[in-house]
């Protein structure tokens, strides 16, 4: 049964729709509540998501379920070493017309959809990985000098397998930066695992009920995305987000210009090679806006930013060798940064 939305969605509409989508997804996906929320937050914030998780944690199922619940077109690409960019974007092929003449015709690749799953993206070569860059950032692909627009909403979810690093190509920083959030899928706990077993080994599949008609689903989603953009932000919270991002940048970095104004934690200076880019601040505010709407507010609060900070900043922070040797990960750094910025708050 399709969700009936008014033409201009309200805050209540947004929260209700969001919760409905969550509920549909959780018919299939057991657990991973935070991951699902962040995934949907990225969708409505207009970003893309990098999903990191060990095999068998439901990455592909999650993305597939989302496509079904939103009733949007969905494609999946399994990234391999020999995958070529044209395999993603599409290519021009010679086709015979009705009049018998042969001509080059553009055959769209799997990138042409609403929801794209790039499975194990780090198995493809950087050249292929970067083929997604233009699509993700500008919602267009260029093939043989011709630019083709992608239809919004466009949502890319890429998965990373963190344990099979042999023969993989870590994502370049520029491409990592284009993902709004990085969502981590951990192993389910015993209770969740029991539910997974019982729900997936029975004769019946969980029926996913689309929330929107296929005809107006993109418009509905776009309407909700516009509502997210309308959420108001007090200037002091913009400053707070900026400080968080700046605090991830090590003081000794040659790219940090005014050192005096930054809030630099000792841990950041010691373990971080490069901090977050300005896209990190955008991610914080957009994620916070979604969080505010879910809470029934038309304004963001500091808590909204803090809640989304690890997902929005951690994958943008490049750690140095000392951090790896000391077992420090980016999430630790972000937590420390939040504490230090809050402590330095006037």
């Amino acid at each position, binding site marked *: 049964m399709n969700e009936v939305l008014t033409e*201009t969605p*309200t805050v209540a509409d947004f929260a209700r729709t969001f919760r409905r989508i969550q509920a549909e997804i959780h018919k299939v996906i057991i657990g991973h509540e935070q991951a699902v929320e962040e995934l949907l937050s990225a969708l409505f914030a207009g970003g893309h998501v990098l999903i990191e998780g060990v095999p068998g944690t439901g990455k592909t199922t999650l993305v597939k379920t989302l496509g079904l619940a939103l009733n949007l077109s969905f494609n999946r690409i399994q990234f391999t070493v020999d995958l070529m960019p044209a395999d993603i974007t599409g290519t021009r092929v010679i086709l015979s017309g009705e009049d018998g003449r042969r001509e080059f015709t553009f055959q769209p690749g799997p990138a042409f959809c609403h929801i794209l799953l790039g499975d194990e993206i780090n198995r493809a070569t950087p050249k292929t990985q970067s083929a997604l860059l233009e699509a993700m950032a500008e919602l267009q692909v260029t093939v043989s000098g011709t630019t083709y627009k992608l239809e919004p909403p466009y949502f890319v979810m890429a998965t990373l397998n963190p344990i099979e690093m042999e023969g993989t190509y870590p994502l370049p920083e520029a491409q990592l930066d284009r993902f709004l959030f990085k969502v981590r899928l951990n192993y389910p706990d015993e209770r969740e695992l029991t539910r997974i077993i019982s729900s997936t080994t029975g004769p019946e599949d969980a029926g996913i009920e689309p929330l929107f008609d296929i005809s107006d689903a993109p418009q509905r989603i776009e309407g909700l995305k516009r*509502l997210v953009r*309308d959420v*108001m932000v*007090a*200037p*002091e919270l913009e400053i707070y987000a900026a400080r968080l991002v700046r605090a991830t940048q090590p003081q000794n970095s040659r790219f940090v210009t005014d050192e005096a104004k930054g809030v630099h934690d000792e841990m950041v200076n010691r373990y971080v090679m490069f901090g977050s880019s300005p896209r990190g601040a955008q991610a914080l505010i957009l994620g916070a806006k979604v969080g505010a709407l879910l809470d*029934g507010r038309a304004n963001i609060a500091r*808590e909204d930013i803090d809640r989304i900070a690890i997902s929005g900043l951690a994958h943008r922070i490049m750690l140095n060798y000392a951090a790896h040797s000391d077992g420090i990960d980016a999430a630790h750094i972000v937590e420390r940064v939040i504490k230090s910025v809050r402590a330095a708050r006037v």
Partner: protein
Amino acid sequence: MSFPSQDRRADEKLSEKLGLILGRVGSVRLRLNSLALQHATLYTLAIAIATAAAIYATAYLLSPLAFLIFTPLISLLAILGIVSAIRAGWRMRASAVRAAAIADERAELKGRLSTIIALAHKPNHGTLWSYLVEDTLGYRDEFAPARIERRRISRAIYPFAGAIFLALLALPLSRLRHKPLIAPDAVSDLTVDLDDLHLRAAEPGDESGMQVNADPETMRRLQDKLARENPTGSDATGNSLNSLVNRARDMAGHFQSKLTGQQPPSKQRLNLRLADSGANAQGDQIRRAPDAKKNRHGDVAGQFKQDQPHSGAELNLPRQDDSRPPNKWPTPNRNGENGTELGSGKDNPSNQDAAIDRSIQQGGENGSNGGEGHGIGADPDSLFGAPAASKLGTEGFEIAIEARPIDHGAKGAGHAYVPPKVRTPLNLNQQPDEPVARAAVPAEDRATIKRVFER
């Protein structure tokens, strides 16, 4: 589809609601600023009152030099405290944005008020503005000023009350008075031969100077002697330092006097008349001035010390060639290291009075210890007697302990202890006691001496 009139009415309603919110935030701000102002004012007053009380108390309790050091220190601390209190009050003041942020935090409004205050004056608010205003107004009871900040009176009232309490505690000190070191009308005669005196300027910080007053000729001679013994060129720096310290001390003393309303402990004042002046045979006495207030001009010459023992500055020692009138003071034990030491061996002239008093008292004691037959004691009735016929003194001395048996009842009745008299021989370093033999006292002086001892 809405009509323009409906839109206008909706805008008016929205403005009205926004006004309500802004008004409440304004009230919160007013209360916060009132507390900030109270904080600064009350702390400033508390520090000022406590400092004044401390200065007032120390004016009674400390010497001028200590007061001189303490007062600027505590004043500096007070100034620092006042500055920091004012700064703290200034930091506590709340702008509208800050008041909204505080209200957000205390009422857990999650930034609603801050956002409204920040965006209220912007032209384009977006589609969710009306929702935000409505939503926030729904929490209007949560951000009422009384709920955001319950206090109307700052906590700074407590230190303020404490300071007042301290000040009240300091008030009883005004009943205390410095007991004058020297009674203004005390009289002590000191016979000094000016030629035997060694004079030097007082050390800085020396609280026991003596003011000497004399006729101009005497003062001139004293100053000449002082100048001879303390050449200006050799100790110019020290003299100027002394002068500065003395001036500072005087200033502190005056300040103390103003605060306490009492005169600073006056220095010992002496009226000096030359003993070696042939024209004025009576001027060989140094006497204390009867009226201290009239004799404030002898400070320079008055700061002198006597370093030479037995230099002739003896207390009422009869001189064979002296034509002055007979002594008005009894002569204490000559070898009793009392009266004679006082005039000669004491560095500090101001202590002479006390020493004189002691000498009188100890002289009496010596009289009773050294031999009752000498008649030298505090009892005016036994002051005079027949002159000693022979040299007094023995080859030893006796210590007699007077003790009486005390009846402790049946338990201790049989154990009363009667101390024996012990006679101890002198060792090699001891000399036999030689009390001054009683001298013949002229009959016309006896009444005067007796009157002095009666006092």
